[in-house]
């Protein structure tokens, strides 16, 4: 891992999160660097997805949840969890790809254009250009260009996931969140998504939750190991996977528990 200049894009500061009374995240502090991939690993229920979903305030959609601490977005130096921040504005800058491909019941074209239309951009020439660009960057343009008006459900699972990536790309995000993006895909589709992620990280900061340790090792620059809502260890991926500081991390990585 070359230590080129790393720019801080966002950081969690002493972040805790509660589902009702239950404390799901315990005082997590973690940096997110620009143009780098940060992976979150840990056993099921350790809070990886919960942590990821704090970044675009998805927890706001459900009642009785609350955050403590901060997630500071740079260069604004603003806490995105603050009441003064509009979660919709946050989601317009931090986009997300889900575990299961979730295209909308619309055509391929309209799926990609969705984020732009929501922002009030309806001019056809702009949409055409953005849709093509996003699909190209998501490595789906060649497969989809002749069937843009087809329903998105007609695509295969891997294509649907790339469509969801294109949809998230079309809005030029500053950070992209991936919540186990390949867990519903076969190995070939997984490989193509991983390859894609490697290309995309030159454009923005990526935070990915994964169950697959090889995937974390392959795609990420930094890795955080979470266990029972706590951040056990955070470091460069290479260090985590070759010489972790903590015994728990080593046990998890070598498959002794989890």
């Amino acid at each position, binding site marked *: 891992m070359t230590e080129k200049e790393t720019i801080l894009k966002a950081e969690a500061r002493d972040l805790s999160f509660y589902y009702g009374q239950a404390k799901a995240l315990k005082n997590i502090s973690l940096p997110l660097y620009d143009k780098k991939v940060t992976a979150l690993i840990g056993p099921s229920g350790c809070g990886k997805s919960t942590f990821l979903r704090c970044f675009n305030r998805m927890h706001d959609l459900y*009642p009785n949840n609350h955050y403590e601490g901060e997630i500071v977005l740079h260069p604004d130096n603003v806490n995105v969890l603050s009441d003064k921040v509009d979660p919709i504005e946050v*989601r*317009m800058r931090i986009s997300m790809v889900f575990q299961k491909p979730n295209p909308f019941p619309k055509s391929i074209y309209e799926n990609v254009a969705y984020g732009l239309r929501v922002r009030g951009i309806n001019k056809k020439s702009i949409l055409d250009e953005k849709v093509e660009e996003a699909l190209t960057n998501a490595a789906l343009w060649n497969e989809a260009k002749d069937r843009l008006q087809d329903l998105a459900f007609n695509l295969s699972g891997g294509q649907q996931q790339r469509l969801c990536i294109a949809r998230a790309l079309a809005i030029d995000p500053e950070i992209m969140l991936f919540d186990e993006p390949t867990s519903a895909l076969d190995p070939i589709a997984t490989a193509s998504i991983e390859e894609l992620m490697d290309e995309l990280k030159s454009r923005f900061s990526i935070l990915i939750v994964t169950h697959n340790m090889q995937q974390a090792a392959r795609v990420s620059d930094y890795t955080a190991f979470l266990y029972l809502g706590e951040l056990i260890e955070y470091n460069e991926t290479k260090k985590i996977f070759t010489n972790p500081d903590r015994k728990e991390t080593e046990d998890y990585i070598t498959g002794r528990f989890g």
Partner: protein
Amino acid sequence: MNTPSNRLAYKPLRHIKERIIEAGLFLAAFMSVATTFAIVAILVYESIPLFKVVSLWTFLTDTQWTPLFDDAHYGIMPLVAGTMVTTAVALAVAIPMGTIIAIYLSEFASHKVRESIKPVLELLGAVPTVVYGYFALIFVTPLLQKLMPELSGFNMLSAGLVMGIMIVPYVSSVSEDAMRAVPMHIREGSYAMGSTRFQTATRVVVPGAFSGIAAAYILGISRAVGETMIVAVAAGMQPNFTLNPLEPAATISSYIVQVALGDLPHGSIGYQTIFAAGLTLMLMTLVFNVIGYWLSRKFREVY
């Protein structure tokens, strides 16, 4: 030893029991299908004597319906027009209201609000239709007459409006079920793109639930076409060939009530007209149901 040991032997009793259960279940399903066919058969059979006197062409094109008068005319069109107009008025109320309520309940209301509104709404569908009929006649019509003084005491507008209110819960509850069936991860996808609740509801949830919503509309139409008491009480039972909702008119169903309550001799032409009218009504609802079935098949969303 190639014969199976006793513990693996075929147990006939088990299979006989299974057969009996299967036969019982089949019979239950068969009964409902058989009833439907029996009704159609009787309607057709009993209509035949009428069509021996009146040609099908006259039945469909004559613009007067006076089977009980000396100068008898047998044109079903006035009744069809009455049915269509009251249905259209009802749908103009029920579809927007039902859809808006469904969107509110499914996408905006909190769990608590939803659970308290739904039973009240369903109560609307439980009010006996004759009560709605009198509500239309002695409350809504006078109210409308204040706005439109020349409105007659019996009219299709007031009957249709009240019928629309009656249908609202059918439209809203079926639409709401369809919207709630749209998986949460699709909604989350929309929110994650930065859309508001309203954008998510109208651009993702409603298109996603379209087949179910279409089914709800068709259910509403079928209810409206077949509704009897409200129109019989409030719309006036006069077979007028008009598309003006401010006028009184009879619908197919209200004609059937009117005639069935009278003392027509069995076997007379007037008596047979009920069956022809019933057959027409049945064919109309059949057409709507087929359209609904087709719509929900065509727009079915697979997640």
